[in-house]
């Protein structure tokens, strides 16, 4: 590739903690890589496993789910459930041929703007090492029909 690979990462953030933390990073003008596109949900408990699978199937290079710290959930325990789901999903996507590091869940509070900036930087570094979504790589390599009959 002529240009350096720039990952496209989907962020799925809860409204009360990480979304607010990411806003704080902005208010504090902390600079971080522009590779994450964010979907705001009220609680990470809303994370349907299908969202992650959908994102990977349409070509996302990584998915970053982030919510409140355990015990700080605005809805008491939504983050417990999403943590559970993400743990399982990481195993599942591995079965599909994706490195589990492509899916990550973090807990970042409304006051941790600096940590959000760090996490994004770290996720971008990780995905850069892993390279583009294997599905995109396969398509690029001209393996027609790969999505239909292969492990994807």
């Amino acid at each position: 590739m002529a240009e350096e690979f720039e990952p496209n990462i989907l962020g799925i953030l809860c409204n009360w903690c990480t979304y607010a933390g990411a806003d704080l990073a902005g208010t504090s003008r902390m600079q971080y890589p522009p590779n994450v596109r964010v979907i705001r949900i009220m609680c990470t408990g809303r994370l349907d496993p299908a969202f992650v699978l959908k994102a990977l199937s349409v070509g996302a290079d990584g998915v970053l789910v982030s919510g409140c710290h355990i015990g700080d959930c605005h809805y008491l325990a939504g983050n417990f459930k999403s943590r559970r789901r993400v743990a399982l999903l990481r195993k599942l996507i591995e079965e599909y041929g994706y490195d589990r590091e492509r899916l990550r869940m973090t807990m970042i509070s409304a006051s941790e703007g600096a940590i959000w900036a760090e996490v994004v930087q770290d996720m971008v570094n990780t995905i850069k090492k892993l390279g583009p979504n294997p599905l995109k790589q396969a398509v690029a390599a001209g393996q027609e029909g790969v999505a239909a009959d292969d492990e994807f």
Partner: protein
Amino acid sequence: MDEEKRIGVFVCHCGTNIAGVIDVKALAEYAKTLPNVAYAEDYTYVCSTPGQTMIRDAIKEHNLNGTVVAACSPRLHEPTFRKATEEGGVNQFLFSMANIREQNTWVHMEEPEKAMQKAKDVVRMEVARASMLEPLTAKTVPVEKAALVIGAGIAGIQASLELADAGIKTYLVEKEPSIGGMMSRLDKTFPTLDCSQCILTPKMVDVERNPNIELMTYSEVEDVSGYIGNFDVTIRQKSRYVYEDKCNGCGKCQEVCPVSRPNEFDLGLQPRKAAYVPFPQAVPLKFTIDMDSCIKCDLCKTQEACGDLEAIDFDKPDELVTVKVGTIIVATGFDMYDVERKEEWGYKVFDNVVTGLEMERLISASGPTGGNVIRPSDGQKPKSVGFVLCAGSRDQDEEDGAKPYCSRVCCMYSLKHAHQLIEKIPGCVPYLFYMDIRSFGKAYEEFYYRIQNEGGKFIRGRVSRITEDPITKNLTVTAEDTLLGQLLEMELDMVVLANAVVPAESTQKIKTLLTLSNSPDGFLLEAHPKLNPMSTTTDGVFLAGMCQGPRDIPDVVSHAAAAAAAASIPIHRGSVTLEPIFAIVDQEHCGGCATCIGLCPYGATELNEVDGKLVASVNEAKCKGCGTCGSGCPSGAIKMQHFTNEQIMSEIEAFAQGW
């Protein structure tokens, strides 16, 4: 939906905040190319009156049925643009917001091209979402005409009095046996030198007498459920082992009680009995038996003591009381930094090193020494007293648990102590070791000049070490005088550590119960640091006083009054509008598996038999809209309104369409 989607996109320049980094005109042009977009425009400040008018006019002129604003965070201006959309004649829930400031131009200033690409992607995603949004009707519910105030220090007292005077039934809950909080421990208040008890006690008495205030001392909030307008609060009234209605406060139980233990109110500087009131002006003046110390000798129950009143009962249990309130004010105050962790200053090792609050008790007329300031080691009056300012504040030493923030009261109370020492002990010289004297309030700087003129000595530098002469118990203080550039060693009779104020331990439980957040300093997070410092992100819950951050008494009182005003608004209005963001069950597809029952933290999902089949339903009033049930439903029968699968999936698809 059958109707053709016609979405308007409004791109905000936000002055140069956005337009200084990305090409907003090109972004608006790009938006025009997106499916379902009928109109797009950019404007300098979309949130301004002309900006909002622009949205309203565009809706009418171009027959729009959905809007997207690309501007700041929806956490800041979503309500503004929803309102403008509604005023334009389109349901407010057909609006979506693209965050291109906080999460774009402010964080990618150095990479304008990539920021532009991200802005396009995010606008595309929000347009896709807006295309899938459904109109919703906000629900209006009545508000209980009562309020709860948690904590009865000066903040809680002030807030309760304001609410009660506004005609609102107020439950004031305090965990200690008496109200008054930290302020009741102070002797005089800076800079006016009003006696703290003299200005506080009348307010405490007002609280007790006000017919609108139901005072619950020695009580703790155990559980909170419900939502703004309709909170159900369970309060544990801990047993005093004394019937409050029978106790007349005569104090005979205290006289006969043989137990002696340190009085927490005086920071252990003098003893109290197991049967006690924390301090003489306590409100309510009802005795409490400290069962952890009581030896059950029954002397207090004898004829000479409580006798015929029969107010004491060692078997009296705790009581759980449930109250219904519309709004809640948190006024849980603060703790003092444990300055023992700073080993270099020898607190609790050297007798004559005390904290600011201990000095407050020593100097107080109602304190253990009756206001005679003496050295703890030998009872002599100190002739030279050092003050270590910023003891744990403005200090980035995380290992010692010190705090980077300014505690905002220590400079001023140390100046006040200096004044009081000069006044009380002829010839006594106070030495203040400071970094900066922060005398920022009304008449504070003037007070600083006054202490300088009275003979207070000011040394700019931090104290690095304190050592003790084992025989005289005098202290040698080592510090650098940074104005003279000299190392300084000084023998002093006594040292006062002006320790930091820190978030209260007891606030943690309340924080969890009310699902509040912390700011980085550990204090409770306000809705907006400048424009809404008395509200929280939980609707109907407000903050008063030090629980939100360090402040002095005038600021606490103002903050508490503001919180009371804010908390009284929904009550006086009589009703609140709730976000219609709750889950609904498609009962035809529901298999009755009950997965959602276990997932809901609020018990909002129920299983009922309908036409001979078990199906789930969601109780709208209990549902808070997290959506956990929707993402767990195996048959996809639960729809989380405003965050439906279709809406989120369309965003994900749009996410991938840019590359």
